[in-house]
């Protein structure tokens, strides 16, 4: 294996997905390298979120393979995919609103001994200790993004921007090697956008690779190492942010 292949974390090959005859993804291929921030842009209906749903196992593709660290993940179910190291966020926020912010983050930790039923009765000291450590770590993560005073508030009382931030914290709490962020800064105030982008920019230094979908072109230009422009389920243009931004095909697609 040469060093280029070694550095690939996710390899998508010829993925096709049809919804009742509508081609959401049409022979889409790309590869993602370790520690990069890859931006996915394109008009609505280009197939960006469909691609996320296929990678994370919520949808099965009609054709194609997806290799994560050389391992085929097409036939894995969602929870297995999360547990081998791919986490995601959702375009429309998904949080458990009735429980506290802290508990939402706690849910996102992987392989908790306390989540196994037998540990509720046996060996519970071990799971209790783990739970305590998780609580400390979760509060730390929440403090880091500046939501310390919201720790024990019910999630529904948080503002939209804060909820968005919390969903990112949940995604990072899983300590996944690859995170898929679906419009992380859509619809939130500029100062919160800055805060979120700073957090995303730091991820590669912590060993996390990022794929993000975003319509905010300034945000994409600011954080991404590489951009893929998608339209009608295919890859139209790929490369450095500036190059893609000035690609005539991209300009053409947006003006159309």
């Amino acid at each position, binding site marked *: 294996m040469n060093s280029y292949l070694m550095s690939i974390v996710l390899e998508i090959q010829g993925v096709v997905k049809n919804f009742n005859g509508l081609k959401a993804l049409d022979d889409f291929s790309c590869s993602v390298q370790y520690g990069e921030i890859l931006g996915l842009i394109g008009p609505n209906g280009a197939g960006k979120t469909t691609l996320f749903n296929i990678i*994370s196992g*919520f949808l099965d593709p009609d054709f194609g393979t997806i290799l994560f660290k050389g391992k085929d993940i097409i036939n894995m*179910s*969602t*929870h297995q995919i*999360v*547990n081998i190291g791919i*986490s*995601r966020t*959702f375009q429309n926020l*998904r*949080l*458990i*609103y*009735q*429980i506290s912010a802290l*508990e939402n983050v*706690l*849910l*996102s930790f*992987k392989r*908790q001994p*306390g*989540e*196994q*039923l037998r*540990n*509720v*009765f046996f060996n519970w000291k071990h*799971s209790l200790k783990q*739970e305590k450590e998780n609580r400390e770590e979760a509060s730390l993560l929440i403090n880091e993004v500046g939501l310390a005073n919201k720790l024990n508030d019910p999630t529904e009382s948080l503002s939209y921007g804060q909820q968005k931030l919390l969903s990112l914290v*949940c995604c990072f709490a*899983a300590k996944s090697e690859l995170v898929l962020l679906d419009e992380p800064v859509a619809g939130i105030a500029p100062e919160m956008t800055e805060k979120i982008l700073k957090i995303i920019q730091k991820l590669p230094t912590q060993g996390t690779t990022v794929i993000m979908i975003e319509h905010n072109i300034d945000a994409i230009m600011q954080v991404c190492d590489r951009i893929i422009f998608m339209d009608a389920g295919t890859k139209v243009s790929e490369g450095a942010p500036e190059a893609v931004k000035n690609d005539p095909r991209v300009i053409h697609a947006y003006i159309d």
Partner: protein
Amino acid sequence: MEYLIHILIMIFIYSILSVSLNLVSGYAGLISMAHSAFYGIGAYISAIMAFKYQSPFLINFVSAVSLCSLFGALVGIPSLRIRDDYFVIATVAFQIIIFNILNNWVSLTNGPMGISVIQMPIIFGVKLSSHLEFLILIGTLSACIYWISYRVVCSPFGRVLKAIREDEVFALAAGKNIAIFKVLIFVISSGMAGAAGVMYSYYISFIDPTSFTVMESIFIITIVIIGGAGKLFGSVAGAIILVLIPEILRFIGIPSTIEANIRQIIYGGMLVAFIIWRPKGLFGDYIFYS
């Protein structure tokens, strides 16, 4: 005094039933209409064993609880592929099947004639001779079941159940194998309902299929809704209230000919009133189908 003991025993039996149903319906959000089927299976297994083989109480208890858990898995696993209303319908179907088996398999269950268990439990050589001693036994059992349920819902396991109830997609995206959680809680809950069934058959000393109908399942779910889904002590409070209502009716002098009808009207009216004006129940924190 005997009367008071009787009421307390019935409250304990219904507390076990409603607390265990609350685990499935209030915490995991799966509305099961088959709870009295498991209750009935437990009652019948212990009654048949005691009647035909004169086997001791503890063996009957353990076999009934384990077989009910097994039945719970048998219903739980295929039901996982279906959600919401369809799950309700599937459990109603199971409930009706069980009732018909109890009613028609005469060689095993004695059909509509029922089975008598004229035997008090003997535990480690101690024979329970009065209803007071039986009350102590069922009180201890209820406390154990409440404690187990409490441990389950307060653990990270219980936190995942709540996440499944609120948003399955979130739970999946957090890497939880939700199928396993659902089956496990269904198995535990069915086993507990079976335990209530064993106590019922020993206490009443006569069982017949009419005690284990869909109406009984609806009664148990009414306790959960009125007490509050997603809070264990709500189910205990609900059981106390709903068991006491017919006794209060008797005290205020409603003639026994119409007492049963009035009781049903009150139960139905309360269920509707709670769903309209207080859907969370007395102490609950979850609203079905919200």
